[in-house]
């Protein structure tokens, strides 16, 4: 029998293969990202507020909502033909199912962010290359927390009516700490502030990740109970 992580990787591989075939969620997220960035770019008045002041907030709003579009599909896939029952019957732990979904979501959201970041740089004329290392770190930390909590809540939301509406309603309160931390670090990176100013926010992001990943692993088992 596969180990928890091994089984998780098998499930993640299946989810990514299905997404690769349909590309529905990925293309929707990319279209959404491009539209949001374009609207914010043309709606702002550059004589009143500089791009570097506005950009961090817009970047993280865009990432969050684009990611949300993808998270919904994680468990919706399993409702098709009641495939979730076959998954629950397989000799793998529910932790494996969570890990598989979280890994697939991490790859999905990471890819969306990977495409969105250059678009963001173009629209807002923000030089991201000099701060790419720091930006990658903060994106990684915030995305892990986002995906960890999103995967857990999408398992809860999928069995409710209006699941696609329910996930953002459940999730947005949980996103306050990582989005706040990510915006604070990003704005300091763009302003070339010293690392010491960012360290507390990075610690917040890392702490949040640890808490939500551990909590999700502990309680995920019960989210699939009926």
């Amino acid at each position: 029998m596969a180990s928890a992580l091994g089984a998780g990787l098998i499930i993640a591989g299946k989810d990514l293969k299905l997404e690769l075939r349909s590309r529905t969620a990925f293309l929707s997220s990319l279209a959404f990202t491009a539209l949001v960035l374009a609207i914010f770019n043309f709606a702002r008045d550059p004589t009143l507020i500089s791009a570097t002041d506005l950009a961090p907030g817009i970047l993280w709003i865009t990432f969050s909502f684009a990611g949300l579009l993808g998270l919904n599909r994680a468990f919706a896939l399993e409702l098709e033909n009641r495939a979730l029952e076959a998954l629950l019957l397989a000799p793998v732990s529910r932790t494996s199912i969570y890990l598989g979904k979280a890994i697939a979501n991490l790859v999905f959201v990471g890819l969306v962010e990977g495409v969105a970041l250059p678009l963001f740089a173009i629209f807002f004329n923000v030089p991201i290359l000099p701060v790419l290392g720091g930006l990658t770190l903060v994106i990684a930390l915030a995305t892990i927390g986002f995906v960890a909590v999103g995967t857990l809540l999408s398992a809860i939301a999928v069995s409710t009516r209006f699941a696609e509406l329910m996930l953002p309603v459940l999730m947005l309160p949980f996103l306050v700490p990582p989005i706040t931390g990510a915006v604070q670090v990003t704005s300091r990176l763009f302003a070339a502030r010293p690392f010491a100013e960012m360290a507390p926010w990075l610690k917040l992001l890392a702490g949040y990740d640890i808490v939500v990943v551990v909590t999700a692993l502990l309680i995920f088992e019960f989210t699939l109970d009926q």
Partner: protein
Amino acid sequence: MSAPSLVVEGLVRGFGHVRAVRGVSFSLGRGEALAVFGPNGAGKTTLLRLLAGILRPDRGDIRIGGLPLVRESAGQRRRIGLIGHQTLCYDGLSAAENLEFFARLYGLGDPRVAALKALEEAGLSDRAAIRVGTMSRGQQQRVAIARALLHDPEIVLLDEPFTGLDQHAAAALRGQLGRLRREMRTVVLVTHNLDEGLELASHVAIQVAGRFAEFGPRSGDAAAFRTRYAEATANG
């Protein structure tokens, strides 16, 4: 009767204020097949999902081969195969990819070979690369059976497997279900189709409002059973 392969005692399961299964008990030996009949809402599917370990009972025990079925026990779950009226497969994957995915989860030696072998046994070798979502209902059901039997389970659970099948596909399915018994697997079939169930079963039960109104070996007199079924469901 052979040594009990599946023993169920005092099974109870509710959803909120509704008791879907109320104190169901029975036992089956290897190679025996139980057909559970009942009207819609009798709790048949809930019973099957309890037997599969997908749902946790509020009370009662399920033992397979003498060992309790607990959700955490992967070894016990390996002994069960579930066939529903839906395929439990992914429409976007081919038949071979679906079976290979489940073969990997079950830790079968060579997942690709196991998947192709299962498809060959199901008579679907030429459809291996076809996406399940584009197959006919009969072919989908054969993929579903191949998926359920992939890991060679000793207990096979079937939930209304004839739903939506045409005559030809239903006849093919009857042949496959007969083979399950010849292979000495223990079968539990829930259905409201008396003809299909009686043909397969060694034991019959009538479930009404969550309870077994009747359980026992199938007698030769189908007409008498139909009368008892009509009375039980009318009174239930």
